[in-house]
């Protein structure tokens, strides 16, 4: 599905990602954890070209991500931001139908809005269709953002700390949506600080340290039997 080969990213000479290689298979769920500033967001943002890699290659469904029409490919790569980033000037319904209406020339407005309402209902947001983003709670905003990404029928979903900006009592409603999505077979990569969630959700957990993949393993091995010292240290800090 997605294949990353020796991806390097520098900002003004600082190496933030250092020859990262990664394979994501169809249907796989990957959790990425690591200390603040270790390069997790940068890695995720490279996967849909929000950041342009300094060197290395990313292949999405066999095609180099940097070549051809990136906008077409991005439609198939759902991205969910930590800070939601709902379009502030339009209603929830407009937020989630904007891209499909502009991109799917053959789909009618009725069809697209019908699909949007179905998805909103599924995530308990139907009564918010005509609300403006700033009248929603954080949890509702993030669920709308997830629906927005799903409207394009993506083949993979990327989440960058989707619950980090939420009040504690709102975290669960968003994680539940993500778990629900996972059980539908969606391919997913999620950067998270929720260790318990990572353990339950992921097929594979990746630890990023100073721009490198320092360790990757099944959740059980990863959390119960960490190998590298940096990971042991990190886990002992976050689990206590």
């Amino acid at each position, binding site marked *: 599905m997605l294949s990353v080969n020796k991806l390097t990213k520098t900002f003004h000479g600082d190496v933030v990602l250092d020859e990262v290689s990664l394979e994501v298979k169809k249907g796989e769920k990957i959790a990425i954890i690591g200390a603040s500033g270790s390069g997790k967001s940068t890695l995720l943002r490279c996967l849909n070209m929000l950041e342009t890699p300094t060197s290395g290659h990313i292949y999405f469904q066999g095609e180099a991500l940097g070549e051809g029409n990136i906008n077409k490919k991005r439609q198939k790569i759902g991205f969910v931001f930590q800070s939601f980033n709902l*379009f502030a*000037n339009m*209603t929830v319904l407009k937020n989630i139908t904007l891209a499909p209406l502009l991109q799917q020339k053959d789909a009618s407005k009725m069809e697209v809005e019908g699909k949007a309402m179905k998805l909103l209902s599924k995530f308990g947001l*139907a009564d918010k269709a*005509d609300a403006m983003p700033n*009248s929603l709670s954080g949890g509702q905003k993030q669920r709308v953002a997830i629906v927005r*990404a799903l409207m394009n029928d993506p083949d993979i979903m990327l989440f960058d700390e989707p619950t980090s900006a939420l009040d504690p009592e709102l975290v669960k409603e968003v994680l539940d949506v993500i778990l629900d999505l996972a059980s539908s077979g969606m391919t997913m990569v999620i950067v998270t600080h929720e260790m318990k969630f990572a353990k339950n959700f992921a097929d594979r957990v990746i630890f990023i340290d100073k721009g490198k993949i320092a360790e990757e393993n099944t959740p059980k091995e990863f959390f119960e039997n960490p190998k590298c010292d940096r990971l042991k240290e990190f886990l002992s800090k976050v689990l206590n």
Partner: protein
Amino acid sequence: MFQNIWQILNDHQERLWTALGNTLRIAFLGFAFAFILGTLIALVRTNPSRHPLMLVAKKILEGYVLLIRGLPTTVQMLLWFFLIFPVALQVRMPAVVIAMIAFSVDGSAYISETIRGAVQSIDKGQMEAGRAAGLTNFQTMQKVILPQAFRNAIPQLGNELISMTKGTSVVGWITVMDLTFTTNLIVSTTFDVVHPYIILAVSYLIIVYILTFLIKILEKAVFKTNAFGKQANKNFSRRRSFR
């Protein structure tokens, strides 16, 4: 006193209506073109593309803004009237049109800066969300960034409209019969310096107050529907059919 004012208004009705028309035409059309031109300039100057052509365009526009803002509006207008059209371009152009062009160009430099600032103050997550959804830079600008930027810029754009309207009082320099120039002519023929100038001052005040009022209304309308979602429940019943 009111007798005298009434007398002047009555005697010079026709010229004064024409003068008002010229003042408003130059101000509004000048502002409209300045707004369009300013928006286009701002779009280029905020474009993230590193394409060589784009970089050159940006430099040129940066120079344009610097040049225009460095020259008094009156001087620009004189240059258009006496040099650019008759000498450089060798084109005959009515003075009113030249005034309009001068104010469009002058205003575009300021408005482009206003809009550029408004665009840059929009959270960059908005653009990223658009791009992540597969929209182009242009589509995201058009549907997401500019509507928010325009909305935030309304107060400042309103100021610019008002200052441009008042600024048109110099067009008499190039023989355009606006309110100010016409009043000067009336003064020089009637030898009455008091009443014509009172009429002139009050006319500008009324125009500016009306504009201020209209801008307030626009501001209110736009901020209500967009920022607080007052429209939220209006279409509620229509959507119900989907569930």
